[in-house]
């Protein structure tokens, strides 16, 4: 595969300090390099949060604009990429906040089952496939992603922020305006529900 070279994709901005200085001076070459290096990751981050390509593209554009507006305040304590990731997540969350709230009780049927003795009801697992086994078949990736999409929105968002974007509990709580306790409850329920949704795959049964 031939990789297309972007304008400004070579030359003086290979090192983060150079790039940062170029961005602070507002050089087009630096901006171009900055965008080219990060846009793929940012599109992926925004798309998995807002689940809409056009909205995701808007988030990415807004995130770049905010980043450049505030570039003088970037002190280099974190990596530029990490900083930009956080800005993108925040943009995506703003889009999500503007959407109407979805019903939250849909998660109940997906939670683990217990009997009247408080014993867990879990059928035996004669075999359990690993994530690697499952994803070795290309079409399974889309299936896993579609199962994640089946989670009620308020749980799916917490799962994506914690497990995929790797924000910590306090950061997710702040981003969503909920308590840390609530983040933990939603994360655990989201994972439990996803386990139930992915069970046929993990058991090696037909989806």
């Amino acid at each position: 595969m031939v990789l297309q070279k972007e304008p400004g994709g070579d030359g003086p901005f290979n090192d983060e300090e150079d790039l940062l200085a170029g961005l602070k001076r507002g050089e087009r070459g630096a901006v171009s390099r900055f965008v080219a290096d990060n846009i793929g990751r940012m599109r992926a981050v925004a798309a998995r949060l807002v689940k809409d390509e056009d909205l995701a593209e808007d988030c990415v554009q807004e995130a770049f604009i905010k980043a450049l507006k505030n570039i003088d305040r970037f002190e280099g304590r974190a990596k530029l990429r990490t900083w930009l990731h956080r800005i993108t997540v925040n943009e995506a969350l703003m889009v999500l906040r503007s959407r109407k709230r979805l019903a939250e009780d849909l998660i109940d049927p997906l939670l683990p089952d217990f009997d009247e003795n408080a014993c867990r009801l879990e059928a035996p697992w004669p075999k359990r496939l690993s994530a690697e086994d499952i994803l070795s078949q290309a079409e399974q990736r889309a299936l896993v992603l579609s199962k994640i999409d089946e989670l009620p929105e308020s749980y799916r968002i917490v799962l994506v922020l914690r497990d995929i974007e790797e924000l910590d509990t306090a950061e997710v709580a702040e981003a969503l305006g909920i308590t840390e306790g609530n983040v933990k409850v939603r994360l655990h329920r989201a994972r439990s529900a996803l386990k139930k949704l992915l069970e046929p795959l993990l058991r090696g049964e037909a989806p």
Partner: protein
Amino acid sequence: MTPSYGSRALRFMKGLMLRNLPLMITCREFEDFLLDYLEGNLPRGQRRIFDLHLAICRECRDYLAAYKETMALGKRAFDDPAAVLPQTVPEDLITAVMEARHPDSEK
């Protein structure tokens, strides 16, 4: 297909034991503290009680293994190698970003 959960009588005995013997917790209690257990937030004494429950409860052991594999599967499904390749950069995006940096210069 109805899943097979084993004998009700055995589960009754197990529930009785888990509720009444010292150092035992029920599967429900195990569930309530599972996240803290996984994140290493339980004090050592409670962690031992959790480990003991795992050692004697096949259901919670299987559940936890599948739960962990689910986490791995979710994470890996999102790993998109294409996202890190250089992508086409829309020129109008660069222009919009440049304008944000110097709102007056490109008017």
